[in-house]
């Protein structure tokens, strides 16, 4: 069964550093998403991406965040200057008729 692949599974970074989280969506899917889950809390929408541009974003997705689909297969989330409160599980998802989530990247900011 096709999968959404996320790398790395766990990333530790120093506060103020830039991080890039990587995702390979399912190849024939057209919509791509990033979600975030702070430990013990609900899953929150960050951004959706379609036709090489952002189609919708939440209030969480401020100027420190950006997304890119650099080569037609990867879909990345960049956090420019990480803060302690960015520590969370980040999920990538893709969809055509239904959603498939990746297994997540656990980001720890120290």
């Amino acid at each position, binding site marked *: 069964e096709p999968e959404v692949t996320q790398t790395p599974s766990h990333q530790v970074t120093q506060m103020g550093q830039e991080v890039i989280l990587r995702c390979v969506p399912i190849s024939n899917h057209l*919509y791509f*998403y990033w*979600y975030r*889950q702070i430990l013990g*809390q*609900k*899953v*929150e*929408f960050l951004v*959706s991406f379609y036709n090489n541009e952002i*189609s*919708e974003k*939440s209030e969480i997705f401020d100027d420190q965040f950006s997304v890119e689909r650099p080569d037609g297969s990867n879909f990345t989330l960049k956090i420019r200057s990480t803060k302690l409160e960015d520590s969370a*599980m980040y*999920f990538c*998802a893709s*969809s055509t008729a*239904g*959603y*498939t*989530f990746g*297994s*997540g990247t*656990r980001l720890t900011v120290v």
Partner: protein
Amino acid sequence: AQTVTQSQPEMSVQEAETVTLSCTYDTSESNYYLFWYKQPPSRQMILVIRQEAYKQQNATENRFSVNFQKAAKSFSLKISDSQLGDTAMYFCAFMNRAGNMLTFGGGTRLMVKP
């Protein structure tokens, strides 16, 4: 904006018994989708079951079924013959017809006891 509420933070059930998890939502739309996701300790998000709002028939997937009450904006999940592997967080989620984003409830932690 849509909201999704799961009123049971934690539940437990004996193995082989049946348990029902509650979910209510608020929307002004008439066409939408509802989902239940399972999140085991690995924290992966696994789709359990999906319901289209325009379908009156409740969705069923093996031991998992839903009770969808559109007028009441209620979408409960019933797990029959509970198994130890069902122990997980369960999230109810809403998606509008445009299908651009999922709105999740706060989750219910289910413990299946042997």
